[in-house]
Protein backbone atom coordinates (compact mmCIF):
# COMPACT_ATOMS: atom_id res chain seq x y z
CA UNK A 1 0.00 0.00 0.00
CA UNK A 2 1.35 3.39 -0.91
CA UNK A 3 1.62 6.23 1.57
CA UNK A 4 -1.13 8.12 -0.27
CA UNK A 5 -3.56 5.18 0.09
CA UNK A 6 -2.56 4.95 3.72
CA UNK A 7 -3.65 8.55 4.33
CA UNK A 8 -6.95 7.96 2.53
CA UNK A 9 -7.65 4.81 4.58
CA UNK A 10 -6.88 6.55 7.86
CA UNK A 11 -9.29 9.36 7.01
CA UNK A 12 -11.99 6.98 5.76
CA UNK A 13 -11.80 4.76 8.84
CA UNK A 14 -12.28 7.80 11.08
CA UNK A 15 -14.81 9.74 9.07
CA UNK A 16 -16.55 7.23 6.79
CA UNK A 17 -19.17 8.87 4.61
CA UNK A 18 -18.02 12.37 5.48
CA UNK A 19 -15.24 11.91 2.92
CA UNK A 20 -17.14 12.74 -0.26
CA UNK A 21 -14.27 12.02 -2.60
CA UNK A 22 -10.64 10.97 -2.33
CA UNK A 23 -8.53 11.21 -5.45
CA UNK A 24 -4.88 10.37 -5.94
CA UNK A 25 -3.96 12.38 -8.99
CA UNK A 26 -0.39 11.12 -9.20
CA UNK A 27 2.23 10.11 -6.65
CA UNK A 28 2.40 12.81 -3.94
CA UNK A 29 -0.77 14.65 -5.00
CA UNK A 30 -3.89 13.84 -2.97
CA UNK A 31 -7.26 15.63 -3.14
CA UNK A 32 -9.90 14.99 -0.47
CA UNK A 33 -13.38 16.52 -0.72
CA UNK A 34 -15.51 17.07 2.38
CA UNK A 35 -18.39 19.27 3.47
CA UNK A 36 -17.56 22.48 5.26
CA UNK A 37 -18.84 21.11 8.57
CA UNK A 38 -16.35 18.21 8.54
CA UNK A 39 -13.43 20.35 7.40
CA UNK A 40 -11.92 21.07 10.79
CA UNK A 41 -12.40 17.47 11.91
CA UNK A 42 -10.27 16.31 8.97
CA UNK A 43 -7.53 18.78 9.85
CA UNK A 44 -7.53 17.56 13.45
CA UNK A 45 -7.23 13.93 12.35
CA UNK A 46 -4.39 14.81 9.99
CA UNK A 47 -2.52 16.45 12.84
CA UNK A 48 -3.32 14.06 15.68
CA UNK A 49 -3.32 10.70 13.86
CA UNK A 50 -0.73 11.29 11.15
CA UNK A 51 1.37 14.05 12.68
CA UNK A 52 0.88 16.51 9.82
CA UNK A 53 2.24 19.89 10.93
CA UNK A 54 3.09 21.76 7.75
CA UNK A 55 0.41 23.83 6.09
CA UNK A 56 1.67 25.25 2.80
CA UNK A 57 -1.22 27.60 2.16
CA UNK A 58 -5.00 27.91 2.07
CA UNK A 59 -6.70 28.81 -1.16
CA UNK A 60 -10.29 29.76 -1.76
CA UNK A 61 -12.15 28.95 -4.97
CA UNK A 62 -15.38 30.56 -6.11
CA UNK A 63 -16.94 27.72 -8.12
CA UNK A 64 -19.95 29.97 -8.91
CA UNK A 65 -22.53 27.64 -7.32
CA UNK A 66 -20.47 27.16 -4.14
CA UNK A 67 -17.26 28.16 -2.41
CA UNK A 68 -14.37 25.86 -1.70
CA UNK A 69 -11.74 26.43 0.99
CA UNK A 70 -8.71 24.33 0.24
CA UNK A 71 -5.81 24.07 2.69
CA UNK A 72 -2.76 22.42 1.15
CA UNK A 73 -0.85 20.32 3.67
CA UNK A 74 2.55 18.79 3.22
CA UNK A 75 3.12 15.35 4.69
CA UNK A 76 6.25 13.31 3.88
CA UNK A 77 6.39 14.94 0.47
CA UNK A 78 2.67 14.45 -0.28
CA UNK A 79 0.54 17.51 -0.94
CA UNK A 80 -2.79 16.80 0.79
CA UNK A 81 -5.50 19.17 -0.43
CA UNK A 82 -8.62 19.19 1.76
CA UNK A 83 -11.44 20.66 -0.27
CA UNK A 84 -14.04 22.02 2.12
CA UNK A 85 -17.28 22.77 0.27
CA UNK A 86 -19.45 25.56 1.64
CA UNK A 87 -22.72 27.03 0.34
CA UNK A 88 -22.54 30.33 -1.49
CA UNK A 89 -25.37 32.05 0.36
CA UNK A 90 -23.91 31.72 3.88
CA UNK A 91 -20.20 31.28 3.43
CA UNK A 92 -18.47 30.41 6.68
CA UNK A 93 -15.92 27.90 7.89
CA UNK A 94 -14.25 27.02 11.18
CA UNK A 95 -10.84 28.50 11.84
CA UNK A 96 -8.03 25.94 12.14
CA UNK A 97 -5.58 28.41 13.64
CA UNK A 98 -5.83 26.68 17.05
CA UNK A 99 -4.77 23.38 15.44
CA UNK A 100 -2.25 24.76 12.94
CA UNK A 101 -0.95 28.21 14.08
CA UNK A 102 0.65 28.71 10.65
CA UNK A 103 -2.84 29.19 9.19
CA UNK A 104 -3.06 32.70 10.67
CA UNK A 105 -2.29 34.76 7.55
CA UNK A 106 -3.86 32.35 5.06
CA UNK A 107 -7.26 32.46 6.76
CA UNK A 108 -7.18 36.26 6.77
CA UNK A 109 -6.49 36.15 3.04
CA UNK A 110 -9.41 33.78 2.33
CA UNK A 111 -11.66 36.08 4.36
CA UNK A 112 -10.78 39.32 2.61
CA UNK A 113 -10.56 37.93 -0.91
CA UNK A 114 -13.73 35.80 -0.89
CA UNK A 115 -15.80 37.16 1.99
CA UNK A 116 -15.81 33.80 3.70
CA UNK A 117 -16.37 34.15 7.44
CA UNK A 118 -13.67 32.28 9.35
CA UNK A 119 -15.27 31.44 12.70
CA UNK A 120 -12.92 31.62 15.68
CA UNK A 121 -10.06 33.48 13.99
CA UNK A 122 -8.56 35.96 16.47
CA UNK A 123 -7.88 38.81 14.01
CA UNK A 124 -10.04 39.40 10.96
CA UNK A 125 -8.41 42.67 9.85
CA UNK A 126 -7.05 43.05 6.32
CA UNK A 127 -3.90 41.22 5.27
CA UNK A 128 -3.20 42.45 1.74
CA UNK A 129 -5.96 44.95 1.00
CA UNK A 130 -5.77 48.54 2.26
CA UNK A 131 -7.64 49.67 5.36
CA UNK A 132 -9.97 51.89 3.34
CA UNK A 133 -11.00 49.08 0.97
CA UNK A 134 -14.79 49.21 0.29
CA UNK A 135 -16.65 46.96 2.68
CA UNK A 136 -18.34 43.96 1.11
CA UNK A 137 -16.19 44.03 -2.03
CA UNK A 138 -14.42 40.68 -2.31
CA UNK A 139 -12.10 40.88 -5.31
CA UNK A 140 -11.54 37.20 -6.06
CA UNK A 141 -15.25 36.39 -6.29
CA UNK A 142 -16.33 35.50 -9.80
CA UNK A 143 -19.10 38.11 -9.92
CA UNK A 144 -16.51 40.87 -9.45
CA UNK A 145 -15.27 41.81 -12.89
CA UNK A 146 -11.66 42.86 -13.31
CA UNK A 147 -12.44 46.00 -15.34
CA UNK A 148 -15.28 47.08 -12.99
CA UNK A 149 -12.99 46.52 -10.02
CA UNK A 150 -10.31 48.74 -11.53
CA UNK A 151 -12.84 51.47 -12.31
CA UNK A 152 -14.42 51.37 -8.86
CA UNK A 153 -11.11 51.50 -7.02
CA UNK A 154 -9.74 54.33 -9.14
CA UNK A 155 -12.97 56.30 -8.72
CA UNK A 156 -12.97 55.95 -4.94
CA UNK A 157 -9.34 57.02 -4.76
CA UNK A 158 -9.96 60.21 -6.78
Amino acid at each position, binding site marked *: MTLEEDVVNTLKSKLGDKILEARIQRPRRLFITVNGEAYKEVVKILKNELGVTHLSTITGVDARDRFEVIPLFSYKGIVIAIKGIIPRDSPSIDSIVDVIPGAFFYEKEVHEMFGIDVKGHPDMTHLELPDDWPEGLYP*LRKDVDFQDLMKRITKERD
Partner: protein
Amino acid sequence: MSTAIDIPIGPQHPALKEPINITCYVDGEQVVGAKLRMGYNHRGIEKAGEYQSYIQNLYLAERICGICGIVHSFSLAQATEDIIGKELPRRADYIRTIGLELNRVHSHLLWLGVAAHEVGFDTLFMYVWRDREAVMDLIEEVTGNRVTYALVTIGGVRRDLPQERAEKVLRVMDLLEEKVKKYKKMCIDEKTLRMRCDGVGLLRKEDAIALCAVGPTARASGVPYDVRADDPHAAYDEIPFKVVTYDTCDVTARVLVRIDETLESINIIREAIKKMPSGPIRVRLPRVVPAGEGVGRTEAPRGEVIHYVRSNNSDKPFRWKVRAPTLANFLSIPVMLTSKGDYVVNIADIPIAFASIDPCMSCTDRAIKFVDVNDGKSWVWSLSQIKRVSHGGGR
Protein backbone atom coordinates in the same frame (compact mmCIF):
# COMPACT_ATOMS: atom_id res chain seq x y z
CA MET B 1 -2.23 60.46 28.42
CA SER B 2 0.55 60.00 25.95
CA THR B 3 1.02 61.81 22.67
CA ALA B 4 2.15 59.81 19.67
CA ILE B 5 4.64 61.33 17.28
CA ASP B 6 4.97 59.76 13.87
CA ILE B 7 7.77 60.74 11.57
CA PRO B 8 6.80 59.28 8.22
CA ILE B 9 9.59 58.23 5.90
CA GLY B 10 8.32 57.54 2.41
CA PRO B 11 5.78 56.41 1.23
CA GLN B 12 7.68 57.04 -1.98
CA HIS B 13 11.32 56.11 -2.07
CA PRO B 14 13.56 55.27 -5.04
CA ALA B 15 14.46 51.92 -3.51
CA LEU B 16 10.91 50.91 -2.63
CA LYS B 17 9.83 47.75 -4.37
CA GLU B 18 7.94 45.79 -1.76
CA PRO B 19 7.23 47.98 1.23
CA ILE B 20 6.20 46.58 4.57
CA ASN B 21 5.45 48.15 7.90
CA ILE B 22 6.70 46.69 11.16
CA THR B 23 5.46 48.07 14.46
CA CYS B 24 8.01 47.31 17.16
CA TYR B 25 7.10 47.66 20.82
CA VAL B 26 10.18 48.80 22.72
CA ASP B 27 11.08 49.13 26.37
CA GLY B 28 14.21 51.27 26.40
CA GLU B 29 16.57 49.54 23.97
CA GLN B 30 14.74 46.24 24.17
CA VAL B 31 12.16 45.10 21.67
CA VAL B 32 9.33 43.37 23.48
CA GLY B 33 6.94 42.81 20.61
CA ALA B 34 6.42 43.34 16.90
CA LYS B 35 3.54 43.47 14.48
CA LEU B 36 3.52 43.38 10.69
CA ARG B 37 1.33 45.15 8.18
CA MET B 38 1.82 44.19 4.56
CA GLY B 39 -0.04 44.59 1.32
CA TYR B 40 1.47 47.90 0.19
CA ASN B 41 2.41 46.27 -3.05
CA HIS B 42 -0.56 43.98 -3.64
CA ARG B 43 -0.91 43.82 -7.40
CA GLY B 44 -3.91 41.55 -7.90
CA ILE B 45 -1.94 39.09 -10.01
CA GLU B 46 -4.19 36.12 -9.16
CA LYS B 47 -7.26 37.98 -10.42
CA ALA B 48 -5.44 39.22 -13.53
CA GLY B 49 -4.38 35.63 -14.26
CA GLU B 50 -8.00 34.56 -14.69
CA TYR B 51 -8.25 36.87 -17.69
CA GLN B 52 -5.13 35.66 -19.48
CA SER B 53 -4.09 32.45 -21.17
CA TYR B 54 -1.77 29.96 -19.48
CA ILE B 55 1.11 30.97 -21.72
CA GLN B 56 0.62 34.66 -20.93
CA ASN B 57 0.43 33.80 -17.24
CA LEU B 58 3.84 32.14 -17.38
CA TYR B 59 5.35 35.52 -18.13
CA LEU B 60 3.22 37.23 -15.51
CA ALA B 61 4.27 34.59 -12.98
CA GLU B 62 7.92 35.19 -13.77
CA ARG B 63 7.42 38.82 -12.78
CA ILE B 64 6.06 38.04 -9.30
CA CYS B 65 9.61 38.21 -8.01
CA GLY B 66 12.59 39.95 -9.55
CA ILE B 67 15.07 37.66 -7.83
CA CYS B 68 13.55 34.22 -8.14
CA GLY B 69 11.07 34.56 -11.00
CA ILE B 70 11.89 31.15 -12.49
CA VAL B 71 10.44 29.30 -9.49
CA HIS B 72 7.02 30.82 -10.22
CA SER B 73 6.98 30.06 -13.93
CA PHE B 74 8.22 26.57 -13.09
CA SER B 75 5.50 25.95 -10.48
CA LEU B 76 2.74 27.22 -12.75
CA ALA B 77 4.01 25.07 -15.62
CA GLN B 78 4.25 22.03 -13.33
CA ALA B 79 0.67 22.45 -12.05
CA THR B 80 -0.61 22.83 -15.62
CA GLU B 81 1.36 19.84 -16.90
CA ASP B 82 -0.07 17.77 -14.03
CA ILE B 83 -3.61 18.56 -15.19
CA ILE B 84 -2.80 17.70 -18.80
CA GLY B 85 -0.99 14.60 -17.56
CA LYS B 86 1.87 14.48 -20.01
CA GLU B 87 5.45 13.40 -19.31
CA LEU B 88 8.19 15.86 -20.26
CA PRO B 89 11.35 15.00 -22.16
CA ARG B 90 14.07 14.27 -19.60
CA ARG B 91 16.44 16.81 -21.11
CA ALA B 92 13.90 19.55 -20.31
CA ASP B 93 13.80 18.42 -16.67
CA TYR B 94 17.58 18.69 -16.48
CA ILE B 95 17.71 22.14 -18.07
CA ARG B 96 14.98 23.30 -15.66
CA THR B 97 17.04 21.96 -12.76
CA ILE B 98 20.10 23.87 -13.93
CA GLY B 99 17.99 27.03 -14.27
CA LEU B 100 16.55 26.63 -10.76
CA GLU B 101 19.96 26.00 -9.21
CA LEU B 102 21.71 28.87 -11.00
CA ASN B 103 18.92 31.02 -9.64
CA ARG B 104 19.57 29.74 -6.12
CA VAL B 105 23.30 30.44 -6.39
CA HIS B 106 22.75 34.04 -7.47
CA SER B 107 20.01 34.60 -4.89
CA HIS B 108 21.99 33.19 -1.96
CA LEU B 109 25.04 35.25 -2.94
CA LEU B 110 22.84 38.32 -3.21
CA TRP B 111 21.50 37.63 0.27
CA LEU B 112 24.92 37.01 1.75
CA GLY B 113 26.04 40.40 0.47
CA VAL B 114 22.92 42.09 1.83
CA ALA B 115 23.31 40.38 5.22
CA ALA B 116 26.94 41.51 5.41
CA HIS B 117 25.83 45.04 4.57
CA GLU B 118 23.12 44.94 7.27
CA VAL B 119 25.72 44.32 9.97
CA GLY B 120 28.15 46.86 8.54
CA PHE B 121 30.60 44.40 6.95
CA ASP B 122 30.65 46.10 3.57
CA THR B 123 33.92 44.51 2.43
CA LEU B 124 32.26 41.12 2.32
CA PHE B 125 29.24 42.67 0.62
CA MET B 126 31.39 43.99 -2.22
CA TYR B 127 33.42 40.80 -2.66
CA VAL B 128 30.29 38.64 -2.78
CA TRP B 129 28.43 40.87 -5.19
CA ARG B 130 31.44 40.99 -7.49
CA ASP B 131 31.39 37.21 -7.73
CA ARG B 132 27.61 37.11 -8.05
CA GLU B 133 28.06 39.08 -11.25
CA ALA B 134 29.76 36.04 -12.80
CA VAL B 135 26.61 34.02 -12.09
CA MET B 136 24.39 36.74 -13.56
CA ASP B 137 26.45 36.73 -16.78
CA LEU B 138 26.20 32.96 -16.85
CA ILE B 139 22.43 33.06 -16.41
CA GLU B 140 22.22 35.49 -19.31
CA GLU B 141 24.21 33.12 -21.51
CA VAL B 142 22.22 30.04 -20.52
CA THR B 143 18.69 31.49 -20.58
CA GLY B 144 19.05 34.63 -22.68
CA ASN B 145 18.11 37.00 -19.84
CA ARG B 146 19.65 38.19 -16.59
CA VAL B 147 16.47 38.58 -14.54
CA THR B 148 13.28 37.25 -16.12
CA TYR B 149 14.67 34.13 -17.70
CA ALA B 150 11.64 33.04 -19.77
CA LEU B 151 13.28 29.61 -19.80
CA VAL B 152 10.34 27.48 -18.71
CA THR B 153 7.35 26.87 -20.93
CA ILE B 154 4.41 24.53 -20.56
CA GLY B 155 5.76 21.25 -21.90
CA GLY B 156 9.47 21.86 -21.42
CA VAL B 157 11.99 24.64 -21.87
CA ARG B 158 12.48 27.23 -24.59
CA ARG B 159 16.24 27.15 -24.91
CA ASP B 160 18.68 24.28 -25.17
CA LEU B 161 22.00 24.07 -23.37
CA PRO B 162 24.61 23.14 -25.97
CA GLN B 163 27.89 21.48 -25.05
CA GLU B 164 30.15 24.55 -25.28
CA ARG B 165 27.83 26.58 -23.07
CA ALA B 166 27.64 23.76 -20.53
CA GLU B 167 31.43 23.70 -20.40
CA LYS B 168 31.49 27.38 -19.63
CA VAL B 169 29.00 26.80 -16.80
CA LEU B 170 31.34 24.18 -15.34
CA ARG B 171 34.32 26.56 -15.51
CA VAL B 172 32.43 29.28 -13.65
CA MET B 173 31.28 26.72 -11.06
CA ASP B 174 34.91 25.83 -10.29
CA LEU B 175 35.75 29.47 -9.76
CA LEU B 176 32.69 30.03 -7.59
CA GLU B 177 33.27 27.00 -5.42
CA GLU B 178 36.70 28.31 -4.48
CA LYS B 179 35.29 31.78 -3.67
CA VAL B 180 32.29 30.55 -1.69
CA LYS B 181 34.51 28.29 0.42
CA LYS B 182 36.64 31.32 1.18
CA TYR B 183 33.57 33.32 2.27
CA LYS B 184 32.41 30.46 4.46
CA LYS B 185 35.71 30.51 6.29
CA MET B 186 35.45 34.28 6.54
CA CYS B 187 31.96 34.11 8.05
CA ILE B 188 33.01 31.50 10.59
CA ASP B 189 36.26 33.20 11.62
CA GLU B 190 35.35 36.88 11.46
CA LYS B 191 34.69 37.90 15.06
CA THR B 192 32.78 41.11 14.32
CA LEU B 193 30.35 39.26 12.09
CA ARG B 194 29.81 36.51 14.64
CA MET B 195 29.16 39.05 17.39
CA ARG B 196 26.33 40.52 15.34
CA CYS B 197 24.82 37.18 14.31
CA ASP B 198 25.32 34.64 17.12
CA GLY B 199 22.17 34.23 19.18
CA VAL B 200 20.35 36.95 17.21
CA GLY B 201 16.95 36.42 15.59
CA LEU B 202 16.25 33.23 17.49
CA LEU B 203 13.56 30.93 16.09
CA ARG B 204 13.28 27.73 18.08
CA LYS B 205 12.63 24.48 16.28
CA GLU B 206 9.17 24.01 17.79
CA ASP B 207 8.20 27.55 16.73
CA ALA B 208 9.50 27.00 13.21
CA ILE B 209 7.36 23.85 12.93
CA ALA B 210 4.24 25.38 14.48
CA LEU B 211 4.42 28.52 12.34
CA CYS B 212 5.05 26.49 9.16
CA ALA B 213 8.34 28.23 8.36
CA VAL B 214 9.99 27.22 5.09
CA GLY B 215 13.35 27.25 3.35
CA PRO B 216 16.64 28.27 4.96
CA THR B 217 14.66 29.87 7.82
CA ALA B 218 13.26 26.45 8.78
CA ARG B 219 16.45 24.55 8.03
CA ALA B 220 18.53 26.90 10.20
CA SER B 221 16.19 25.91 13.04
CA GLY B 222 16.88 22.22 12.48
CA VAL B 223 13.75 21.42 10.42
CA PRO B 224 14.89 19.38 7.39
CA TYR B 225 12.10 20.62 5.12
CA ASP B 226 13.16 20.84 1.48
CA VAL B 227 10.70 20.32 -1.38
CA ARG B 228 13.50 19.17 -3.68
CA ALA B 229 14.14 16.17 -1.44
CA ASP B 230 10.59 15.48 -0.16
CA ASP B 231 8.69 15.96 -3.41
CA PRO B 232 11.30 15.43 -6.17
CA HIS B 233 10.44 17.30 -9.35
CA ALA B 234 12.43 18.21 -12.48
CA ALA B 235 15.59 16.08 -12.27
CA TYR B 236 16.06 16.13 -8.49
CA ASP B 237 15.10 12.45 -8.26
CA GLU B 238 18.28 11.50 -10.13
CA ILE B 239 20.71 13.92 -8.53
CA PRO B 240 21.93 13.20 -5.01
CA PHE B 241 22.34 16.21 -2.74
CA LYS B 242 22.38 16.99 0.95
CA VAL B 243 19.61 18.88 2.77
CA VAL B 244 21.63 21.36 4.83
CA THR B 245 20.42 21.97 8.37
CA TYR B 246 21.90 23.76 11.36
CA ASP B 247 20.46 23.75 14.85
CA THR B 248 21.62 26.98 16.50
CA CYS B 249 18.38 28.65 15.25
CA ASP B 250 20.02 32.10 14.93
CA VAL B 251 21.22 34.39 12.15
CA THR B 252 24.60 32.63 12.04
CA ALA B 253 22.79 29.37 11.26
CA ARG B 254 20.89 31.07 8.43
CA VAL B 255 24.15 32.44 7.00
CA LEU B 256 25.80 29.02 7.11
CA VAL B 257 22.76 27.18 5.72
CA ARG B 258 22.75 29.46 2.69
CA ILE B 259 26.50 29.22 2.12
CA ASP B 260 26.42 25.41 2.34
CA GLU B 261 23.40 25.31 0.05
CA THR B 262 25.28 27.37 -2.51
CA LEU B 263 28.03 24.75 -2.46
CA GLU B 264 25.40 21.99 -2.81
CA SER B 265 23.85 23.86 -5.74
CA ILE B 266 27.21 24.06 -7.47
CA ASN B 267 27.46 20.28 -7.19
CA ILE B 268 23.88 19.78 -8.39
CA ILE B 269 24.64 21.87 -11.49
CA ARG B 270 27.79 19.83 -12.19
CA GLU B 271 25.93 16.56 -11.74
CA ALA B 272 23.02 17.72 -13.91
CA ILE B 273 25.36 18.67 -16.75
CA LYS B 274 27.12 15.31 -16.45
CA LYS B 275 23.93 13.24 -16.49
CA MET B 276 21.89 15.33 -18.93
CA PRO B 277 20.52 13.06 -21.69
CA SER B 278 20.26 14.22 -25.30
CA GLY B 279 16.93 14.56 -27.02
CA PRO B 280 14.11 17.05 -27.47
CA ILE B 281 13.66 19.92 -24.99
CA ARG B 282 9.89 20.29 -25.17
CA VAL B 283 6.65 18.63 -26.18
CA ARG B 284 3.85 20.57 -27.77
CA LEU B 285 0.87 20.62 -25.41
CA PRO B 286 -2.64 21.85 -26.23
CA ARG B 287 -3.43 25.45 -25.36
CA VAL B 288 -6.81 24.42 -23.98
CA VAL B 289 -6.32 22.73 -20.62
CA PRO B 290 -8.93 20.09 -19.68
CA ALA B 291 -10.99 20.64 -16.53
CA GLY B 292 -9.16 19.65 -13.39
CA GLU B 293 -6.80 20.90 -10.72
CA GLY B 294 -3.12 20.75 -10.10
CA VAL B 295 -0.52 21.75 -7.54
CA GLY B 296 2.96 22.82 -8.57
CA ARG B 297 5.72 23.46 -6.11
CA THR B 298 9.44 23.81 -5.88
CA GLU B 299 12.10 24.93 -3.45
CA ALA B 300 12.82 28.57 -4.17
CA PRO B 301 15.95 30.17 -2.66
CA ARG B 302 13.70 31.47 0.15
CA GLY B 303 11.77 28.26 0.66
CA GLU B 304 8.78 26.36 -0.62
CA VAL B 305 6.79 27.99 -3.43
CA ILE B 306 3.35 26.55 -4.12
CA HIS B 307 0.89 27.21 -6.93
CA TYR B 308 -2.65 25.87 -7.18
CA VAL B 309 -4.41 25.87 -10.55
CA ARG B 310 -8.07 25.06 -11.27
CA SER B 311 -8.85 24.66 -14.97
CA ASN B 312 -12.20 24.54 -16.74
CA ASN B 313 -11.51 23.28 -20.25
CA SER B 314 -10.48 26.64 -21.64
CA ASP B 315 -7.20 28.38 -22.36
CA LYS B 316 -7.45 30.50 -19.19
CA PRO B 317 -7.18 29.27 -15.60
CA PHE B 318 -10.40 29.35 -13.59
CA ARG B 319 -8.40 29.98 -10.42
CA TRP B 320 -4.69 30.47 -9.91
CA LYS B 321 -3.31 30.70 -6.40
CA VAL B 322 0.30 31.61 -5.60
CA ARG B 323 2.01 31.43 -2.25
CA ALA B 324 5.56 32.77 -2.15
CA PRO B 325 7.88 31.69 0.69
CA THR B 326 8.23 35.11 2.32
CA LEU B 327 4.58 35.04 3.43
CA ALA B 328 5.14 31.67 5.09
CA ASN B 329 8.13 33.09 6.96
CA PHE B 330 6.55 36.39 8.01
CA LEU B 331 4.81 34.74 10.98
CA SER B 332 8.24 33.95 12.42
CA ILE B 333 9.35 37.61 12.40
CA PRO B 334 7.38 38.70 15.52
CA VAL B 335 8.81 35.65 17.34
CA MET B 336 12.37 36.58 16.34
CA LEU B 337 11.80 40.20 17.39
CA THR B 338 10.33 39.54 20.83
CA SER B 339 12.56 39.45 23.92
CA LYS B 340 11.66 36.52 26.11
CA GLY B 341 13.46 35.42 29.29
CA ASP B 342 17.19 35.21 28.55
CA TYR B 343 16.64 36.12 24.94
CA VAL B 344 17.07 39.86 24.47
CA VAL B 345 16.35 41.67 21.21
CA ASN B 346 17.92 45.10 20.85
CA ILE B 347 16.76 47.74 18.38
CA ALA B 348 20.08 47.31 16.59
CA ASP B 349 19.26 43.64 15.92
CA ILE B 350 16.08 44.41 13.99
CA PRO B 351 17.62 44.89 10.51
CA ILE B 352 19.64 41.69 10.47
CA ALA B 353 16.93 39.61 12.19
CA PHE B 354 14.40 40.75 9.61
CA ALA B 355 16.85 40.33 6.73
CA SER B 356 17.70 36.82 7.89
CA ILE B 357 14.50 35.36 6.41
CA ASP B 358 15.58 36.95 3.11
CA PRO B 359 12.53 39.01 2.30
CA CYS B 360 12.83 41.15 -0.82
CA MET B 361 15.22 43.59 0.77
CA SER B 362 13.84 46.85 -0.52
CA CYS B 363 10.70 46.02 1.47
CA THR B 364 12.49 46.83 4.66
CA ASP B 365 13.56 50.30 3.65
CA ARG B 366 10.13 51.74 4.32
CA ALA B 367 9.74 52.52 7.99
CA ILE B 368 9.60 50.88 11.36
CA LYS B 369 7.30 52.30 13.99
CA PHE B 370 8.44 52.20 17.60
CA VAL B 371 6.12 52.26 20.55
CA ASP B 372 7.67 52.80 23.96
CA VAL B 373 5.69 50.53 26.26
CA ASN B 374 6.30 52.71 29.30
CA ASP B 375 4.77 55.96 28.12
CA GLY B 376 2.98 54.87 24.97
CA LYS B 377 5.00 57.31 22.85
CA SER B 378 5.56 56.19 19.30
CA TRP B 379 7.91 57.37 16.61
CA VAL B 380 8.88 56.21 13.16
CA TRP B 381 12.35 55.52 11.87
CA SER B 382 13.46 54.50 8.45
CA LEU B 383 15.60 51.42 8.27
CA SER B 384 18.62 53.49 7.31
CA GLN B 385 18.29 55.40 10.60
CA ILE B 386 18.18 52.15 12.55
CA LYS B 387 21.19 50.99 10.62
CA ARG B 388 23.05 54.09 11.77
CA VAL B 389 22.26 53.11 15.35
CA SER B 390 23.14 49.50 14.73
CA HIS B 391 26.47 50.55 13.22
CA GLY B 392 27.26 52.61 16.30
CA GLY B 393 26.51 56.06 14.90
CA GLY B 394 24.00 57.00 17.64
CA ARG B 395 20.59 58.48 17.03
